[in-house]
């Protein structure tokens, strides 16, 4: 019994990387945010008609006798004036904007928990309202549940502005920058929200498999069943490939067997980590194929596969390289002034952007001996005037050019490269850097004044 409990505990609460949970937050919130914005600003999407503000407003104009809200909507509308009240256009406007604003907050991780709660509530309301007129589709349901689940986990503790702000606050309070360690990046509560997502997918696929066996029985595999769906969807959604495929009942039989086998055994993707990758690839392929040959879009379900990020990453992870290979792989060393607030902020930001963990930080005021060894020829006075970066080849870059070289090493900064390498950038950049550096001397607790 004790062993079983330990296994249960490890299944849900074994320490896991916070970055994986944060990646799930970014992908799932990003997907829903995209549907809201694209569906309203560009064109309504079949993947989420209710995400479109135009559609929401259109719904308020149709016959009230068809309005049949489900409990989720009634609960959310309760503060508006009673059980079963129908939202008006102005209220839906406000909810849509709340969804967008809170979605941006949740995406970048600003007031993450509050943003996620607002985002989940606003989207639940919008989509439940979209389905309050007898029409119901399944594409949004799991994603909506997952948004709520993410709000209750520590999904803002990594890859978020909240994390950066908190680390800056700690750094400034102690006037010392401390780079992230592997221990900082794992948490006991980072696993369970992803596990909930995995098991939700298992139950959804199981439901699909059981329904086919219960309603269709063995006849579901007769080949004609799938050809019927290929033809009817192919016609409804304008998919010539589906129509063409509906002429091959034998192939359809094989595809039917593969589909139900996949759905019925999906739990193996959770229970056997080695099978996670094939199941994830199979699932993504399944949904893309359905979209290509039949038409129904499963964008949200495909995005939900992010909950397997941990299992897939560990399966694909290369073995840890030997120390000399690690050294060769190329580390960048940043020599910064650890007694200057703006330098601490910069170091925290660079550390947060260092997704591939290639940066080492040397606080020149506390570790000058190490800095002098890493950068022979660099004097303490020079180091105090500007940040210095030592690239993997041993080259030393100063000030603006240090930033520019780092931008090459940090993928999140790649979008800034055209600006950093633009004509005249090498002239204007150093001047701007020096201006900021002079200002930071003013606000800094300098070496001299701190008396360290």
């Amino acid at each position, binding site marked *: 019994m004790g062993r079983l409990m330990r296994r249960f505990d490890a299944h849900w609460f074994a320490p896991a990387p916070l970055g994986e949970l944060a990646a799930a937050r970014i992908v799932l919130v990003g997907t829903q945010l995209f549907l809201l914005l694209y569906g309203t600003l560009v064109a309504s999407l079949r993947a989420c008609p209710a995400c479109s503000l135009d559609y929401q407003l259109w719904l308020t104009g149709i016959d009230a006798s068809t309005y049949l809200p489900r409990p989720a909507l009634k609960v959310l509308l309760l503060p508006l004036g009673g059980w079963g009240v129908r939202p008006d256009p102005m209220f839906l406007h406000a909810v849509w904007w709340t969804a967008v604003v809170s979605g941006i907050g949740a995406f970048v991780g600003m007031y993450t928990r509050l943003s996620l709660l607002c985002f989940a509530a606003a989207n639940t309301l919008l989509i439940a309202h979209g389905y309050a007129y007898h029409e119901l589709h399944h594409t949004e349901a799991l994603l909506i549940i997952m948004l709520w689940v993410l709000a209750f986990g520590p999904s803002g503790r990594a890859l978020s502005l909240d994390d950066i702000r908190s680390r800056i606050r700690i750094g400034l309070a102690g006037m010392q920058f401390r780079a992230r360690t592997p221990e900082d990046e794992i948490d006991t509560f980072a696993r369970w929200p992803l596990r909930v997502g995995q098991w939700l997918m298992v139950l959804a696929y199981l439901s699909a498999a059981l329904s086919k066996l219960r309603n269709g029985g063995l006849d579901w595999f007769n080949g004609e069943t799938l050809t019927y769906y290929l033809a*009817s969807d192919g016609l409804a959604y304008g998919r010539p490939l589906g129509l063409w495929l509906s002429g091959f009942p034998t192939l359809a039989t094989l595809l039917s067997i593969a589909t139900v086998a996949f759905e019925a055994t999906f739990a193996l993707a959770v229970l056997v980590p080695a099978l996670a990758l094939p199941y994830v690839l199979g699932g993504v392929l399944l949904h893309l194929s359905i979209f290509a040959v039949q038409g129904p879009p499963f964008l949200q379900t495909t995005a939900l596969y992010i909950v397997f990020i941990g299992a897939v990453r560990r399966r694909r992870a290369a073995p840890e390289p030997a120390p000399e290979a690690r050294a060769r792989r190329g580390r960048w060393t940043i020599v910064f002034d650890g007694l200057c607030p703006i330098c601490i902020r910069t170091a925290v930001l660079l550390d947060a952007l260092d997704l591939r963990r290639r940066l080492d930080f040397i606080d020149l005021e506390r570790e000058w001996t190490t800095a002098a060894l890493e950068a022979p020829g660099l004097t303490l006075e020079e180091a105090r005037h500007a940040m210095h970066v030592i690239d993997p080849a041993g080259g030393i870059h100063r000030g603006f050019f240090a930033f520019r070289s780092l931008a090459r090493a940090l993928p999140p900064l790649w979008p800034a490269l055209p600006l950093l390498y633009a004509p005249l950038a090498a002239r204007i950049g150093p001047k701007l850097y020096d201006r900021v550096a002079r200002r930071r001397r003013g606000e800094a607790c300098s070496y001299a004044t701190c008396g360290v």
Partner: protein
Amino acid sequence: MRLRKGFALMIIAGVLGFQLRVILPRGGGTDWFWPFINYPMYSAAHYAGEAVRPRELRIVPCEPGRPARPVDWHLLRIPKFRYRAVVRTLVSDGPRTLSMPDTAVVARLSRLIREHVPGNYCTAELWGRTFVLPLSAASLDPPWHRIKSWRLATEPAETTGRAP
């Protein structure tokens, strides 16, 4: 730590318990608990010889020579399920039709067209075609046939024809 774990366990049990309940044969079959729903789409079996019958509602302008315009539920500002029920009632070929006489359905549809589709249209037509499974290259493009048509100008609307 114990409190946080207890809270997390409560959410896990609540979310997965609800989802499990709606997919079980006895507890499920309802979408009342959305977003906790079951997934029975595409689960009925079908057989060779069955037909797929797409329908299309079109309205014909009063000016001769101008092409007919397809009309859908969105244009008529009615829910999709109601539009489908209207079409099923007009051809009387499926479950979930409207419980009203044919003439009343035609009158209501005519009113919706006049209200929501700008322009001068005189006739509404319901068209359809039939794909019999399994499809072959020869059966991929069956001809459209007119199932029904009626004049829009007068009220109550009059039915002018019906195809088998």
